[in-house]
Structure formats: C-alpha cells, structure tokens
C-alpha cells in the first residue's frame, strides 16, 4: 500500500507513466487493422473498379461488394475486442480523397470497357486496390499514434 511519501515520489510517478505507455502500446497494437482485413477491402475495391469490364449479370457481384466490407468489419471488430477512438477530420479527409480516386479509376474502367479494352481495366483496378491499401495503412498508423499517446 502506498503511503503519502510515495505519492509525491518522482520515481513512482515515472514508473506509473511508463506502465501507462506500455499499456497504451498494447491497445495500439490491437486497434490496428489486421493485414487480412486491408487485403480483403482492397480486393473488393479492385473488383468494384473492374466491374464495368466484367460484363454479364453483375447482381451477385454487387451483393458481394455491398456485404463484403460489412462482413470483414464485423469479423475484425469481434476479434480485436477494442472499439477504437473516433476518427478525426484528417482521417475523413483521407477517406474522401480515396473515394474520389476510386471513382476516377472507375470512370477510367468504364471508358476502357466501352472502348473495347476491357482487359486493361485490370490496371485501374490494381491502382484502386493499391490506393485503398495505402490509405488504410496510413489511417492505421495515425490511429496507433493517437492511441499510444498518453493524455
């Protein structure tokens, strides 16, 4: 049991702060998205961008694209058992930028498909997947820094 002299001891205070930092680091490791989650989301985005070039009945594809991210997010959340802090404006900015890039690449894919160059839609699809993965990693790094900082 600590006594009054311990409460004002700089060494105890430093030790307590170090323990807090170590705990924060463990939470930061948990809140980061696992590799399979980012890979899965990136793959779904690639399929979405490649969609115009796939032709045929795409109703099943749309169902997968609508449900896929939800399923991945639910599995991710159930495994990590930590609800991360809410993201700030900068993170939303990156998400909106990614959305703009994906829509641009989708329009390129439409153009390629309309021009009889459907196989080349793989390029914007891969670019979309890469952009999604990179933004996801950036957001994770930002979240880890935010969580690891003892306030």
């Amino acid at each position, binding site marked *: 049991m*600590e006594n009054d002299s311990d*409460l*004002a*001891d*700089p060494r105890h*205070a*430093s030790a*307590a*702060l170090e*323990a*807090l930092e170590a*705990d*924060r680091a*463990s*939470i*930061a490791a*948990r*809140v980061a998205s696992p590799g399979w989650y980012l890979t899965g989301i990136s793959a779904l985005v690639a399929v979405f961008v490649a969609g115009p070039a796939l032709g045929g009945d795409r109703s099943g594809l749309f169902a997968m694209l609508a449900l896929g991210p939800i399923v991945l997010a639910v599995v991710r959340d*159930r495994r990590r*058992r*930590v*609800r*991360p*802090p*809410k993201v700030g404006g900068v993170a939303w900015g990156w998400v909106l930028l990614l959305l703009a890039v994906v829509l641009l690449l989708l329009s390129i894919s439409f153009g390629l498909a309309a021009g009889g160059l459907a196989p080349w839609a793989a390029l914007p699809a891969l670019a979309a997947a890469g952009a999604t993965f990179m933004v996801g990693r950036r957001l994770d790094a930002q979240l880890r820094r935010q*969580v*690891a900082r*003892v*306030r």
Partner: protein
Amino acid sequence: MSAEAQRDVHFDELIHAPVRLRVCGLLAAAEEVEFSVVRDAVDVSDATLSKHVKVLVDAGYAAVRKAPSSVRSDARLLTWLRLTPAGRRAFSAHVAALRAIAEGLTP
C-alpha cells in the same frame, strides 16, 4: 500556474491505485475495451478487476455495458468497459499531475 491550468492538473487518489490507474489508461485509449482484454493486460483475476471496475463505476468514472457474443458457444455476455467523460477528465488531470511530479514540479 493559471487557474485554468490548475484545473487540468489534479492528483486523484481514487485513480492512482495501481490497478485502477492502468485500467483507466487502457480505457482512455479507446471508446470501449472488452473486459478480458483489460484483465489480461493488467494481469489480474476476474474478481479483482471487477472490484476495481466497480469502484470506478461508483465514482462515475467508468461505465459497463453487456452485449451478446456470437463468438462464445455459451449464452454468456461480453462485458464492455469505457471511461465516462468525467472519468476521462479525471484521468487526464491525474496524468498531468504525475508528469508534474515526475519532472520534480508541484502539481
């Protein structure tokens, strides 16, 4: 130190208990943390953690939420822990006090 700065620095004896300090530190890092994650991180038994969580809840610093689990084969609920706004303010002020002590200053 200004009055406003003094309000942001406050040594909280309730939070300072070693287990409760670490619990608050873990909860402050997230919106909610599941009970087993906190227990394993602090390395205490279920009963010990429950006792300390109750102290925090009674002080208005923490809140508990039970939710069904689809990962468990039984019907037991998952217990989610979070700091209340008052708890976050108190923890933040206490960490500031610890920093001041660690730097040899009087909070």
